[in-house]
């Protein structure tokens, strides 16, 4: 029934090989792009079939290992190239191939005329292949193969515009931080493998086997270490504190890359990994707490920075970091299904946002280029009033923004609200819950604010672009707009499959399909929580409603602030000036509310944001990363001098070595 799943990663691999080896010879952009997109479309088709097959099975027969061939086998150790098909990987498959396909289509238009067009599609297909390996691999090692592969592609694609120095630096930074993470991951694999084998004689790295023996980890003191090192891997890949600064820099890559790799898929790998190994995490309360705290802190922290950015892609980048923080928060409070759900909805609306911003940048770039202006095409201060020029882009962008802001009825609301509720009501962290919830809620407020600030600055108000360039602004071609529309549609309807319980009951017993679908994967964690929860989560329905209302209110407040600050000042004065001259002064001065807001909220917030960005981000985090590098390089330089080139020095080193070795054995 699942015999053909190996086709899913195979298609992008074929696409990669064709484009990578013959792309230069093919030259024709349509053919190259067509091959790239078609490969992913084929994968998507097979993935859909797989999903239907899974759904058609009874709930408890939905986990399948599909071996392809034995990869490494020696004695007790075995790692197969085998795929794990279960509800979780199905969800990820749909996201990777579905969103991936749309982004491939979009890229055909976006990358039109770029040098090395074939290279771009080859990398993109290689990325899809690696990502599919990551989500489908049925053991840690195969997952690691994908894990490394996606990192590599990300690195190559960030540095795609290698003529720019900043792009190369950004690629290097991403690489270094990812290596730190990968080191953690590999260490986790080794420790896990060794511990289980040493103590229980079960030498395995296969997920289903590990899950089967999950209860053996009970009371394993090393489990906290194991899960923490895995989490280090996740922080690197998924850009969490403290390894997040590469992601904003990664925006140097082409926008489709930002959408696919640095928003929708690769950066969520850490979340997926924790979800995949939920049965280990749930048994390590300390790790759970760390994950939740880091996630919550990142969500809030990145959101504050987002408010102070003027580069449209950087806002979205910090927003991504922040939303990833939500996902980790969900993982950390044991709401695995909610985290994965947010992963999915986020993929929809964030991909839409990135692609929309790409369309804007594309259009801006052409317009500026046309009149030889050197203004920054990504700076929102140069934009404004694009609503009329690019109505379709605006529409889709607005829908996605509403979705991320958490307005009821849109996808982001369902997933985010579920996470906030779980952060408040979960039985794992006791009194810490309030803090976690507060983190999330504050971040939600800021999210609504900066996203609408972005919309208002970009699409509303006066057009601040050089007048000459104004007429060259135009809507993007259909190949770019089509993916936007599909993604915007998904940003609306995507949420309804995961309706929160109380809302579903209100609407006549609509179940949370998503959670039910994923239930088999998280079964152990559910049971474990039920058995071990210190305080059973008896929270009243009223409280849940109240919090839901509160979070909606928060979202509207955020939007309101943005509206007042970035729209109102331009519209209100015009209406009132002539009619009420006395009032005019006050209105002209925006009721002095701006000043008040500036004083009370915006200035401190901006200052904090700026401080965190310029101070902490650039100086501290980068400083540490670069510092470690310099120390190692310095050490390397010193060691080099031992290599003096003189034979007698070398002979001396050998003699010394021999003498020390012999002396050590004699005198010990």
């Amino acid at each position, binding site marked *: 029934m699942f015999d053909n799943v190996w086709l899913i990663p195979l298609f992008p691999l074929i696409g990669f090989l064709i484009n990578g080896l013959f792309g230069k010879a093919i030259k024709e952009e349509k053919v190259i792009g067509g091959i790239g997109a078609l490969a992913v479309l084929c994968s998507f088709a097979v993935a859909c079939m797989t999903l239907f097959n899974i759904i058609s099975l009874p709930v408890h027969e939905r986990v399948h290992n599909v071996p392809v061939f034995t990869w490494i086998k020696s004695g007790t150790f075995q790692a197969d190239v085998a795929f794990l098909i279960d509800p979780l990987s199905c969800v990820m498959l749909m996201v990777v191939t579905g969103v991936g396909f749309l982004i491939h289509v979009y890229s055909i238009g976006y990358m039109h005329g770029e040098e090395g067009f074939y290279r771009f599609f080859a990398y993109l297909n290689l990325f899809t292949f690696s990502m599919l390996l990551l989500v489908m691999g049925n053991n840690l090692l195969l997952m690691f193969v994908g894990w490394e592969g996606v990192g590599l592609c990300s690195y190559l694609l960030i540095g795609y515009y290698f003529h720019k120095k900043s792009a190369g630096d950004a690629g290097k930074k991403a690489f270094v931080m990812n290596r730190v993470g990968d080191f953690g991951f590999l260490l986790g694999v080794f420790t896990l493998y060794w511990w289980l084998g040493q103590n229980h004689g079960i030498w395995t790295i296969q997920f289903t086997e590990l899950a089967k023996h999950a209860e053996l980890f009970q009371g394993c003191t090393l489990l906290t270490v194991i899960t923490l090192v895995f989490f280090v891997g996740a922080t690197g890949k998924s850009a969490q504190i403290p390894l997040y600064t590469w992601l904003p820099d990664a925006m140097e890559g082409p926008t489709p890359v930002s959408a696919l790799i640095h928003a929708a898929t690769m950066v969520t790998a850490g979340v997926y990994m924790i979800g995949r190994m939920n049965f280990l995490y749930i048994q390590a309360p300390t790790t759970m707490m760390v994950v939740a705290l880091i996630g919550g802190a990142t969500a809030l922290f990145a959101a504050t920075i987002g408010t102070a950015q003027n580069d449209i892609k950087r806002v979205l980048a910090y927003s991504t970091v922040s939303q990833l923080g939500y996902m980790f928060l969900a993982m950390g409070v044991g709401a695995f299904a909610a985290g994965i759900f947010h992963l999915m909805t986020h993929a929809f609306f964030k991909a839409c946002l990135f692609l929309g911003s790409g369309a804007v940048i594309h259009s801006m770039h052409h317009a500026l280029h046309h009149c030889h202006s050197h203004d920054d095409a990504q700076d929102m201060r140069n934009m404004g009033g694009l609503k009329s020029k690019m109505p379709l882009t605006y529409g889709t962008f607005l829908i996605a923004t509403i979705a991320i802001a958490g307005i009821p009825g849109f996808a982001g609301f369902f997933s985010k609200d579920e996470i906030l509720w779980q952060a408040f009501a979960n039985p794992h962290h006791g009194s810490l819950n309030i803090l976690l919830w507060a983190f999330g809620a504050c971040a939600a407020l800021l999210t609504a604010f900066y996203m609408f600030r972005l919309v208002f600055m970009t699409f509303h108000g006066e057009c601040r672009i050089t007048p000459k360039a104004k007429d060259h602004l135009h809507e993007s071609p259909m190949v770019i707009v089509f993916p936007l529309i599909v993604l915007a549609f998904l940003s609306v309807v995507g949420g309804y499959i995961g309706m929160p319980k109380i809302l579903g009951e209100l609407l006549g017993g609509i179940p949370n399909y998503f959670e039910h679908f994923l239930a088999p994967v998280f079964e152990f964690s559910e049971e474990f929580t039920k058995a071990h929860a210190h305080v059973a989560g008896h929270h009243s329905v009223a409280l849940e409603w109240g919090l839901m209302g509160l979070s909606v209110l928060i979202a509207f407040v955020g939007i309101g602030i943005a509206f007042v600050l970035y729209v109102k000042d331009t519209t209100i004065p015009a209406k009132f000036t002539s009619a009420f001259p006395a009032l005019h002064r006050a209105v002209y001065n925006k009721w002095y509310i701006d000043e008040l807001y500036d004083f009370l909220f915006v200035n401190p917030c901006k200052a904090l944001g700026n401080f965190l960005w310029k101070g902490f981000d650039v100086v501290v985090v980068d400083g540490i990363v670069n510092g470690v590098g310099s120390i190692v390089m310095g050490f390397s330089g010193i060691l080099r001098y031992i290599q003096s*080139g003189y034979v007698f020095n070398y002979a001396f080193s050998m003699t010394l070595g021999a003498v020390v070795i012999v002396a050590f054995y004699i005198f010990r």
Partner: protein
Amino acid sequence: MLEKYLILSAILFSIGTLGVLIRRNAIVIFMCVEMMLNAVNLTFIALSKHLGNIDGQVFVFFVMTVAAAEAAVGLALMIAFFKNRESIDVEDINVMKL
């Protein structure tokens, strides 16, 4: 009796080693290496005599021939080096370093 031979050869070996470390002429250094090898030969012979086992002596034959072969190759290399550099001082053998 054995100890004395072993000690003598140990001393010879050490002198050879020291020579390699402190001499600067490549040929002299190689002579010191030869001294180390011959110290080993002495050890082999002494042990062979002590153990009443002929293997040690056979080993010495091989060591000697191998040392001769090494000497031939080494001298050839030194001549080639000398032709280019007009020196066989090991302080001059340092084009490549770091």
